[in-house]
């Protein structure tokens, strides 16, 4: 059961990455107009002969299947081509920046769980009371505040006005504001998820039985409700992480945090297609691998899955 589940997830991940490589090869051909002309529109004085040479170098004159195969071949050698601007190797550039994005997404996730979980649990415990309503109004407001606005406000207050934290850049102190920005937005989602999951568990028969046999309330919450209620929440963590990665793209650009998101937006502006292709591939692969690891951890934690192995 567990092996089958994991193999299914693994196949799914491999398919996703495989489809990504096809999508990335096709991408440049879907661009309306001549992609090479668009890419070099910003650099002056490129002659038609030079453009033709570039087209040749990028392999855009070859038949499509051949382009795809040579892309795959180069990919296996770890070569994703070079950026249009600066002629830097795409993969190296992306891998150099990836740890910054992962650090931001990871820190934000820790914050989101640390804030959202207790709030959701408290709301579920005090279900129907003013505590519950207040917390859930706060949560829905939190879901509604755009993270780019929250980021700007935090930056304005804590970095520009109070001067407590650096405005922008990449370093340990610089991580604080972007992580809070991303973490707070997602804490609201975690709180809502936790509440509905805990309420589900609290209304189940085995909890009623525990009450009926006179167990102390704290013990019921600890031993029964918490353990059962956490399972669906952990399942959602993989999805949560993909939200974090997506949100990081925006937040990195507010705080000039040097992750792959910032690189990607610059690449889209400069129409640097090799870099855009590389970004999509690296982003998709990262999301697939991390979701797979989280699923694996969850399968190991949940006795219903682990013991049936």
């Amino acid at each position, binding site marked *: 059961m567990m092996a089958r589940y994991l193999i299914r997830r693994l196949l799914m991940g491999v398919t996703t990455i495989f489809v990504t490589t096809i999508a990335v090869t096709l991408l440049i051909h879907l661009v309306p107009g001549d992609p090479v002309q668009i890419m070099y529109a910003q650099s002056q004085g490129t002659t038609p002969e030079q453009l033709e040479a570039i087209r040749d170098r990028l392999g855009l004159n070859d038949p499509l299947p051949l382009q795809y195969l040579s892309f795959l071949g180069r990919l296996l050698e770890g070569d994703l081509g070079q950026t249009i601007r600066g002629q830097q190797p795409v993969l190296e550039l992306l891998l150099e920046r990836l740890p910054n994005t992962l650090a931001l997404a990871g820190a934000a996730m820790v914050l989101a769980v640390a804030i959202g979980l207790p709030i959701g649990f408290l709301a579920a415990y005090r279900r129907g009371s003013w505590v519950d309503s207040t917390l859930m109004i706060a949560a*829905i407001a939190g*879901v*509604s505040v*755009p993270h780019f606005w929250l980021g*700007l406000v935090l930056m304005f207050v804590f970095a520009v006005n109070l001067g407590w934290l650096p405005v922008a850049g990449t370093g340990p102190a610089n991580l604080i504001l972007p992580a809070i920005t991303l973490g707070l937005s997602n804490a609201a989602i975690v709180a809502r998820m936790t509440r509905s999951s805990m309420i589900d568990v609290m209304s189940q028969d085995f909890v009623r039985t525990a009450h009926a046999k006179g167990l102390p309330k704290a013990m019921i919450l600890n031993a029964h409700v918490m353990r059962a209620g956490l399972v*669906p929440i952990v399942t*959602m963590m993989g999805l949560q992480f993909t939200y974090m990665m997506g949100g990081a793209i925006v937040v990195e650009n507010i705080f000039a945090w040097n992750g792959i998101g910032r690189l990607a*937006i610059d690449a*889209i502006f400069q129409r640097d297609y090799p870099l855009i292709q590389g970004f999509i591939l690296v982003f998709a692969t990262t999301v697939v691998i991390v979701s797979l690891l989280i699923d694996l951890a969850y399968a190991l934690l949940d006795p219903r899955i682990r013991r049936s192995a």
Partner: protein
Amino acid sequence: MTAFAPSDAPRRTRSFWWRVLMQPAGAIACAIIVLLLAAAGLADLLAPHDPTRMAAGRPLTPPSLAYPMGTDELGRDVLSRIMYGARLTLRIGAIAVGISLVLGLTVGLLAAYLRGWLEALLMRSVDVLFSFTETLIALAFVAVLGPSLTNAMIAVGVAGIPFYARTAYASALSERSKPWFEGAVAAGAGPGRLLFLHLLPNVMPTMIVVATLGLSNAILAAAALSFLGLGAQPPQPEWGFMLSAGRDFFSRAPWLMLFPGLAIALTVLAFNLAGDALREAMDPRSLLREDAR
């Protein structure tokens, strides 16, 4: 025509809307949405200035009677820009959600109806698209089509398709397993009839809730693209773009930070609350749980 197919859809009687409006969430949502529609619909009549006219006032004038939300760095009236921005925002939300809803419903219903290898092909494709994440799909679309507000709407709409398809599929699958569906098949209903007169009306209540919550998601995503410069272009009075254009002037003109952000947050809040209220008013158990997104 669907008399023998008892629908789970609540009848559109006063009591349904009454149940929506009687919840605090529904009432607040309704108030904000009415305000939003008024601002968008009556912008031509009510807006004090042309939203794109530069030097309508001195640049960076603080809020006053003449300029209730102040002026921006080019002397444009912020209130007028917010009002015309409401029009843009509602259009963005409607078009993006329209794309997601129509295509998602088509894929989901077809997969649930056809079964077999087509079902597997459609839903596995949806799974793959889903694991790409909405952000990546939207960014890839903008990267291909180039930055513009129209392209951002398309990108956000396409990015939403996997989620809508999954929800429609799950809902249609549970509907088609009910006895009334077998009854319709036994009565000799053809594919068109089964799909459009039986499955579709029964899937719609769930999809209306999803689309209402989806409006807030789409508006947020499009505003984020515009904020990054990948959506609205100058001089469009789009809220996300206004925030990024004004960010260099926040210390001198905090109102440039306050009003567009507040406008986005309230709009998104309204559709979030409206979705919650609709879900509560319909049968809360048969519908999606709030952790679905």
